[in-house]
């Protein structure tokens, strides 16, 4: 079904104050309810190549896959929803493309990218992520981090070695434990969540979450939620004002109205005329 008018999406990507080029890549497709953000890494321009490949391959493949199966249907083979299945399969495909490029072309050797991708359908969303790019949610006045980083720091916090407070001073901030395109296979973390009208979702690269404290990000979304374009610009500006040491990318998604899936034949038929 077409999600135009049900969700509002705004994206903004900036190289920051220090880096000369932008290795982040963002893509969105409101009609199909798809948003993708990738933060590439690798020498010269390989980071851009990796993140660019991740967003384009994933976007194209997901658009095709949505045409074949409805995301909310259950896949009889795996017992998962097709949304989960599609994300897993297509991320695998993107991983293979990046991995093969890095193996066959010496200038791309060792390139990789983090990824966070969401699919909105049937008043729900499925989010898949790899690495330290994050998804946040503002619901009412409550601002929370939805994804958990695949990073050394997060593992140290989880195992109780350091506290969240100590983590802010750690020098191991930039080590991710999973990334797309590094190994022949990759396992994304995939979860489903219900969405509510008024929710604002934020996908961001670590250029935002490392430079701006969470409470300030939350405050910005709360005060500027009425104007997503301005909120996205403001978030990037805050990261740059605090030093902007990395590329900064944000994707904001606001749930404007409910979008239940058209399940019956008649409502599917009506859906054609939307």
């Amino acid at each position, binding site marked *: 079904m077409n999600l135009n008018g049900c969700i509002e999406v705004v994206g903004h990507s900036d190289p920051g104050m220090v880096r000369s080029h932008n290795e982040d890549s963002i893509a969105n497709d409101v009609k199909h309810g798809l948003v993708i953000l990738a933060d590439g890494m*690798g*020498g010269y321009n390989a980071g851009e190549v990796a993140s660019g490949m991740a967003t384009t391959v994933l976007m194209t493949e997901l658009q095709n896959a949505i045409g074949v199966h409805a995301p909310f249907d259950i896949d009889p083979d795996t017992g998962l929803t097709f949304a989960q299945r599609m994300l897993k399969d297509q991320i695998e495909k993107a991983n293979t493309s990046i991995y093969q490029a890095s193996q066959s072309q010496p200038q791309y050797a*060792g390139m990789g990218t983090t990824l966070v991708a969401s699919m909105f359908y049937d008043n729900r969303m499925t989010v898949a992520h790899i690495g330290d790019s994050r998804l946040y949610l503002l619901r009412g006045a409550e601002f929370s981090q939805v994804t958990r980083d695949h990073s050394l720091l997060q593992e140290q916090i989880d195992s109780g070695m350091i506290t969240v407070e100590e983590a802010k*001073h750690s*020098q191991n901030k930039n*080590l991710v434990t999973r990334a797309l395109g*590094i190994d022949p296979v990759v396992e994304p973390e995939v979860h489903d969540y219900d969405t509510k009208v008024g929710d604002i979702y934020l996908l961001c690269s670590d250029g935002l979450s490392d430079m701006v404290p969470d409470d300030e990000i939350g405050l910005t979304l709360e005060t500027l939620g009425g104007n997503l374009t301005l909120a996205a610009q*403001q978030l990037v500006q805050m990261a740059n004002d*605090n030093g902007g040491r990395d590329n900064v990318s944000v994707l904001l998604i606001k749930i404007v109205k409910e979008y239940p899936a058209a399940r019956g034949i008649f409502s599917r038929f009506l859906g054609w005329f939307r």
Partner: protein
Amino acid sequence: MAKLILSMDGLVLKEITLTKERTTIGRKPHNDIQIDNLAVSGEHAIIVTILSDSFLEDLGSTNGTLVNGQPIKKHFLQNNDVVELGKYKLKYLNEAPKAAGGAADFEKTMVMRPGSAPPPRMAPAAPVGTGTVIPGAAAPAPMMAPIPSPAAAPAAFAPAPAAAGAVAQGAIQLLSGPNAGKELVLTKALTTLGKPGVQVAVITRRPQGYFITHVEGATFPVVNGKPLDAQAHPLADHDVVEIAGTKMEFFFKS
């Protein structure tokens, strides 16, 4: 690379570089750092080093371990921490790496894979611009970075909002409407003004000063009699702003 400087009564005895994942400290000779003193337990403490972070743990010693004067059981070591075992002091030094490429490169994201040896130091020593290095077979550059020169400034990591100290405190005073005369100090990074659904503007505090931006509504805020466009507008001392029919004055508190 992090190092420890062992001293007693202000006399430097030894300098130890933390190269091993586990560095043991104690009186017995099999320890990595042996301190032959009866106040030090046989196996007194251990330092676990993971890449550039080090953790100190007391191994149930008789006389305990102090860090900066406080007894600890387990501690995440920070640059310039002083560890005390009896009369002996160990100063922990861990300056942030500075790569040849400058400050820009050392924060680049890298992948750590299980099974691959972690880099001794995360600063890429690659030529300027090569930047990120991923440990593993395909690594295009040597992993070892030059040890930071003593002159290298310790990195200021905390992403503290720079605005607080840099800009004089701004405030607004309402000039018309039912609350005329009321003063509002702009302490937050963002302050919204106006009536939701009618007209809303936001005043942002940045290192460069205060800026006003239109958020929603058909009419735009008016500053000194001139309506704004969609761009952010810098606010000067004693600017008069009109939002949703209410006039207010912006000023810097002295």
